């Protein structure tokens, strides 16, 4: 007589085998990948990659190449990602040059005609000036321009061999020092803010991104922050949250004169209560 019951032990065995196999294939011994692409990197490794892109951009000033590289990371909101990482780098006391490069790239997302002078060229020029006065003429001559960097977003294919070298266009981040032209803390605003708002403008009154602002800290150290992280406000805009009981000194740009005695403006309302407002400073390139 044949057994009418279904072979449940076989079914149980297969299910157990499948479960064990899936556990092994996806958790214990998943396929290890080689030949991956940058968009699959972990977030920390993406940050390393992006900070290197920012730094390379600062040195080479090749925006076409920088944006080709950034496109490989496949960020859905490139501008926000760049701003966020630049802010993180500054806040964590990380590589300020990378932060500056990323801030400039973030600004360039909205302002595609932005051109900077490659830092490597500035370094080479200053080295030549130090070494021999005769070399100044030779090294100060701009290199012949081979073409303009491509502004379009590239596809994730091999791209980096044919990108033209950067041209030696004058830099918005270098040049004449910045001078403070106005300082205001408008009590009428009654915004109860405690921000130090810095606007850095060129001689034509346009905001300049990527300008370093050095601010003294209560403990005696200093911190850097940069313009250009809020292009939606102004390319030359930067802000810093001040401590109400601290007096600060700031310097805008590497050659700027320090501005001392900066404090959160204290105002008194009609009800006799005191409140604070934002302190707004405007610097202009002379």
């Amino acid at each position, binding site marked *: 007589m044949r057994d009418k019951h279904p072979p449940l*032990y076989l079914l*149980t*065995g297969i299910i157990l085998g499948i479960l*064990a196999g899936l556990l092994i294939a996806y958790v214990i011994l998943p396929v290890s*990948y080689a030949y991956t692409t940058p968009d699959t*990197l972990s977030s920390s490794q993406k940050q*390393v990659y992006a900070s290197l892109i920012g730094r390379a951009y600062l040195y080479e000033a090749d925006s076409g190449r920088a944006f080709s590289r950034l496109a490989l990371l496949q960020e859905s909101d490139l501008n926000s990602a760049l701003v966020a990482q630049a802010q993180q780098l500054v806040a964590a006391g990380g590589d300020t040059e990378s932060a500056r490069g990323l801030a400039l790239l973030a600004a360039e997302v909205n302002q595609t005609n932005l051109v900077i002078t490659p830092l490597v060229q500035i370094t080479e020029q200053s080295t030549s000036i130090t070494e021999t006065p005769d070399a100044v003429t030779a090294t100060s001559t701009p290199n012949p321009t081979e073409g303009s960097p491509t502004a379009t977003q590239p596809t994730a294919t091999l791209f980096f061999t044919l990108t033209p070298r950067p041209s030696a266009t004058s830099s918005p981040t270098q040049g004449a020092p910045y001078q403070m032209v106005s300082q205001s803390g408008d009590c009428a605003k009654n915004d109860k803010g405690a921000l130090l708002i810095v606007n850095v403008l060129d001689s034509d009154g346009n905001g300049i991104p990527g300008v370093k602002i050095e601010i003294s800290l209560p403990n005696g150290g200093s911190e850097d922050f940069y313009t250009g992280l809020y292009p939606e406000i102004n390319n030359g805009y930067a802000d810093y949250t001040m401590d109400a009981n601290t007096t600060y000194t700031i310097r805008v740009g590497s050659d700027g004169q320090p501005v001392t005695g900066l404090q959160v403006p204290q105002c008194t309302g009609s009800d006799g209560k005191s409140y604070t407002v934002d302190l707004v400073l405007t610097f202009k390139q002379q």
Partner: protein
Amino acid sequence: MKKRRLIGFFLAIALGLAAALVYGWMIQPAQPVNTTLDSMRPDYQADYVLMVAESYPQQADLPFAIEMLRQLNQNDPVQAVDQALLTAQQLGYSDADMHLLAGLELRVRQYGGGE
């Protein structure tokens, strides 16, 4: 009869296991996520090394450059640059880029590979 069932049970487990492994490793493998820089395709690695060469042109920057190269080859940063040079040559990098890579290779080698 009992022995036959036991053999059948283990054979069923083996069958299920094999089927799941074929599915998980070959048909629908786990997608690459959270990968590391050293697992990138050689052309991306070569461009990474080029970025290092562009970003750290000064001799004083070399320790930082070596740290970045260790992301590709923890034990031998020189090897990472050598591999990048080979890949760059195969891909026909421009002379300027080859010059940058060769300069980096020389500097890292002179520095002792960061050891």
